[in-house]
């Protein structure tokens, strides 16, 4: 095996460098008018791939009632112990229990999705919402209303098309 000499021998025209500079300028000029890759974040949001484990929602059934039956399977499965609830007698006759209050401490939640897997009613699910930062820690302890609202803004899969006013995020 010999040594392969890859030294570039420039032709006389290349030694003026000006054609090379001009072709470089042409490339940058082309890029100037190209489509930009920037996502203008608060207005545009980068859509996450399906299966993304983001903020948690509580699902509603066809009549708009909370699907959860307060069985506490999710709270038991939760490795971070961030789910808490109080079961009460359901005001509807197709189920026995419903959550009087339901609370997820998103400061503790690790978005592992174990609650979703544990739930026998498909009542708790992870969504594509990833931008739920707040100014206070208290705002990250989500009550039932907030979790049901997450359902409303993500159920049709159009979360990323909604305006900021609509999502409140």
């Amino acid at each position, binding site marked *: 095996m010999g040594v392969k000499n890859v030294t570039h021998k420039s032709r006389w025209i290349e030694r003026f460098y*000006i054609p090379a*500079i001009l072709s*470089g*300028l042409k*490339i*940058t*000029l082309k*890029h*100037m*008018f*190209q*489509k*930009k*890759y*920037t996502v*203008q974040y608060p207005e545009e949001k980068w859509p996450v791939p399906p299966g993304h484990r983001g903020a948690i929602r509580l699902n509603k059934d066809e009549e708009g009632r909370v699907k959860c039956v307060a069985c506490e399977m999710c709270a038991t499965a939760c490795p971070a112990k961030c789910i808490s609830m109080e079961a009460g007698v359901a005001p509807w006759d197709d189920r026995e229990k419903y959550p009087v209050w339901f609370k997820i401490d998103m400061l503790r939640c690790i978005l592992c999705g174990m609650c979703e897997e544990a739930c026998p009613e498909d009542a708790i699910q992870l969504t594509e919402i990833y931008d739920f930062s707040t100014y206070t820690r208290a705002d990250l302890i989500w009550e039932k209303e907030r979790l049901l609202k997450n359902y409303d803004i993500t159920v049709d899969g159009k979360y990323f098309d909604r305006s900021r006013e609509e999502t409140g995020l």
Partner: protein
Amino acid sequence: MEQAGYAFVDILIVLAKVIVVIGINLLMVMILTLGERRIAGFIQDRYGPNRVGPQGMLQPVADGVKFFFKEEVIPSKAEKVIYVLAPALVLGPALLTFAVIPFGGPLSVVGKEIQLQIAELNVGILYIFALLSLSVYGLVLGGWASNSKYPLMGGLRSAAQMVSYEISMGLAVIGIIMITGSLRLSDVVMHQNELLFGFLPHWNIFLQPLGFIIFIVAAYAETNRVPFDLPEAEPELVGGYHTEYSSMKFASFMMGEYIALITSSALMTTLYFGGWDFPYVDESSLGIWGVLLSIIAFAVKTGFFLFLYLWVRWTLPRFRYDQLMGLGWKVMIPLALFNIIITGVVMSLL
């Protein structure tokens, strides 16, 4: 020009011209700081700053306010007087240079001929070169007075670089002086006002293409712009000669640099692209509209060269220091001398 008895009106006219020119220069600095970043963004397939005001138009205002309110740090070991003086030494000459550049055709108002040029010096080109070499003092003194290693190296580099490239810049312009036979910039412009061979504008770029290339390369080196921005090469020198400067002193350095950019673009326009000449149109026959047209022509040409500065910045990489010196002394100066010889031979043959 009349020597004695400057009438009150004349002084007012000069004052008005000074205010307008400095105002437009400072406005252009604001536009350039934004333009640089937005064009950088566009070339790199992103948007650049577009949040402050519509399309980021108020970004320079925000930057200016930020500079005003920043803490002023003077290093305790710095040479205080020179340290404070250095930014002024950069900004001052930069602002003064524009004084001799004609930015429009002669305007006649109520029988009075007004030259659109602050000072019609008969040694205009020399004046510009004198001030260009003055601005190197600001950088060197700023770098030295900071009493810190990176600014010192930046200052030394800029001194060496500016001195080397000034020679080839001056030699390139000699070609123009030979053709025109005058150091007066308004004469240079008037000389380019006709047609060459009946169809080309009589611009010096067509007569001195080699001279123009030497001039533009030297101008990029003089203004410390990419690919010759070694005095402030960030990866090697932190920030270069202004590393230790903060607040408005730093802003003065930046303003000085941008004004030098504007002046050298205006100079390229004046020397090689016909100044305020709008090709194929006789401005003097159009009255006030001709003057307006000439100002627009000047602005468009200068704007193009300013854009070229920004465009080149985001295209070319930086030279190595020995390459810079090699190019300056071994290529540019012989080429400039060759250009003078060619010009002389052609002129004596014609």
